[in-house]
């Protein structure tokens, strides 16, 4: 064999060896998120997908929560993968489609998991919940958003409420009365407009929440479900609510370009005193400027008309799930269930209220002095409400309706359609994608 040939063959061998080495080291490499119990070779490894990281208020509870769990469990090794905020939707979908789901993951209710449940990707936890008697530790109806056709698919970890907050100082300064009815709200909007302020610190979500609240003031959970299953079309209640939302838009109650404002940007209008009123999801409570808390007050949302009831839109909103793959492996199921029970435990539920300033679905006692003042007021408003209804945004609607109705509501808001057309379009949408949750 000539020297030249030997050199060629040697180079080829080195090349293949290099590729093989690179590949094998990539496979055996430990991922960044490993919170390992490396000492215990028999430890079960759980892949966890969480969105509660970084600036998310709930991360203050769940990031240290994972560390504590890991420290207390030598037999379980957590491999934490993160997808901050809403990006968890795309990451979870990619992993589910690749048939490589995380063992345990956070997500919203069936409005975002219906397809996974129907494709048998998420485990039905009904038996496990009953065996451990977990239902008793939650507030009533906490499981509703994860119940699907008789099964229960997740454990609630946080709740929500839409809260109406006013800047008392700005109201006093401009001699405006805090509104308790829609008509008073219109008057307040006109007065603040004249004073050069933006009456509502809102983005498109806030405007939609307002409309949903006026709708819910004339509904109960039992009367609203038939509207989502298509058994009964939306009627006058939605028409009146959408007329109010459209009228406020015409009056200039909202900031210009609210459709493209993020929730944080709209909150900034309130935090800086440009707007005296704010109606939003409770996750924003932790982001309110602490310097102005003394000037603020949470008040009941204005009643639509004489027939409206004092209503709080509230319910469980975020959950922890187990994949069907993990459930089918007895060892993983046990480890995953242990982790889920911890994540949805009263211990962390208390911290959700005290540290993350958010609502908890757990029936826990908390230290009032530790809780955020705004959250405390919001809880009081909810407890005093005559009627508590979950948000159509957070629960009840099918995934198909959920995917389309935000755009539809934006069309109403931008006056691209009339309230009558909006109601008709909503009924068509529900007819096309009826909720199957309660079948």
């Amino acid at each position: 064999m000539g020297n030249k040939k030997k050199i060629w063959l040697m180079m080829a061998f080195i090349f293949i060896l290099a590729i093989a080495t690179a590949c094998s080291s990539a496979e055996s490499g430990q991922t960044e998120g490993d919170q390992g119990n490396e000492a215990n070779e028999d430890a079960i490894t759980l892949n966890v997908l969480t969105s509660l990281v970084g600036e998310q208020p709930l991360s203050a509870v769940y990031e240290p929560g994972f560390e504590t769990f890991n420290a207390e469990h030598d037999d379980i090794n957590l491999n934490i993968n993160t997808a901050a905020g809403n990006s968890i939707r795309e990451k979870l979908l990619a992993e589910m489609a690749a048939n490589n789901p995380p063992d345990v993951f956070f997500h919203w209710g069936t409005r975002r998991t219906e397809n996974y449940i129907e494709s048998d990707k998420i485990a039905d936890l009904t038996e496990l919940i009953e065996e451990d008697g977990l239902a008793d530790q939650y507030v009533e109806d906490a499981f509703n958003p994860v119940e699907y056709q008789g099964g229960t698919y997740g454990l609630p970890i946080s709740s929500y409420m839409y809260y109406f907050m006013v800047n008392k100082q700005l109201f006093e300064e401009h001699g405006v009365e805090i509104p308790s009815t829609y008509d008073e709200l219109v008057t307040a909007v006109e007065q603040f407009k004249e004073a050069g302020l933006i009456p509502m610190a809102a983005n498109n979500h806030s405007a939609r929440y307002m409309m949903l609240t006026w709708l819910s003031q004339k509904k109960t959970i039992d009367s609203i479900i038939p509207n989502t299953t298509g058994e009964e079309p939306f009627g006058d209640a939605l028409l009146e609510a959408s007329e109010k939302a459209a009228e406020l838009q015409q009056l200039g109650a909202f900031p210009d370009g609210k459709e493209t404002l993020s929730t944080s940007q709209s909150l900034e209008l309130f935090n800086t005193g440009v707007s005296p009123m704010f109606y939003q999801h409770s996750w924003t409570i932790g982001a309110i400027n602490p310097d102005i808390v003394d000037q603020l007050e949470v008040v009941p949302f204005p009643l639509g008309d004489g027939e409206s009831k004092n209503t709080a839109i509230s319910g469980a909103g975020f959950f922890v799930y187990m994949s069907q793959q993990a459930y089918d492996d007895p060892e993983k199921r046990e480890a995953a269930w242990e982790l889920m029970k911890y994540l949805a435990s009263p211990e962390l539920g208390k911290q959700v209220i005290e540290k993350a300033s958010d609502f908890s679905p757990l029936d826990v006692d908390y230290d009032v002095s530790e809780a955020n003042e705004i959250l405390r007021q919001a809880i009081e408003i909810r407890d005093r409400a005559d009627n508590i209804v979950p948000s159509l945004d957070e629960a009840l609607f099918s995934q198909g309706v959920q995917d389309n109705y935000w755009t539809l509501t934006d069309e109403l808001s931008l006056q691209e359609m009339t309230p009558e057309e909006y109601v008709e379009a909503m009924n068509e949408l529900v007819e096309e994608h009826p909720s199957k949750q309660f079948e």
Partner: protein
Amino acid sequence: MALQRKWILILFAAPTVLFYLFFFISPLLNTVYNSLFDWNGLSDKTFIFIDNYINLFQDEIFIRSLKNTFYWVFLVLFVQIPFGFFLAYFLYLKVKGFKFLRTVFFIPVVTSTVAVALVFSFIYEPNFGIINAFLREIGLGHLTTAWLSDELTAMTAVSVPFVWQNIGLMMVIIYAGLQSIPDEIIEAGEIDGVGFFQKIIHIVIPMIKNVLIVCLVLGVTYAFKLFDYVLLLTNGGPIHRTEVTGTYMYIKGFQELNYGYGNSIAVTMTIIVLFLSVIINKGLKSKG
């Protein structure tokens, strides 16, 4: 000996060829295949042949997103490349500090898209944003608007960062082309008394025609491919006013779990880009 040498060459080429087949060709074929199914990425696939394509061309939102994407192509042709050309020509004249300016003009290209989008979201912010504040300061408050929402301005507003960021890229490519023009040709033209615009139109542009074709193909490809600015600034809204084919494909595939339909959008986009690239190449080369 020659046969053995051939095998060694094949051995060396194989990893790259396999890599290319696995990571580039196979996903492309897979996309075409999936576009023929009704599939949400999770359940069993249902073969529907070309129904996704039939629905696509009856889908008003897709048509709107296609129009918006062609608006980007228009901006590439009539704003991005001409600006890139004049910046490149400016540098080609070796003005004082041209090396520094070359770096400055190129900085946007290497800047993170997220950072650019964030800056522009502050610029466009309707209540505190720089544009509206400036207009109010100079007494043109009546011209203020919600730049990203207003039907008249939304699409242009999301296009500006895309056009601005890639002008530097066009400039660098054209600048490289300008440097390859022999000085004698320019000098001969100057001796013959050509004016500034005559020089550009009759000497410079014909000499760098192939480079301009590359710019055109790249620009059209980017216009169809890029959607991050839309996603970050408006997410295609409000009410699809700023939807482009890229965002619509993403929403259908990854948010509404309509994988088959999303794949049909991807295939359609690929065909359009290929068609335009061929037209540009054939059309401009034949005139040479």
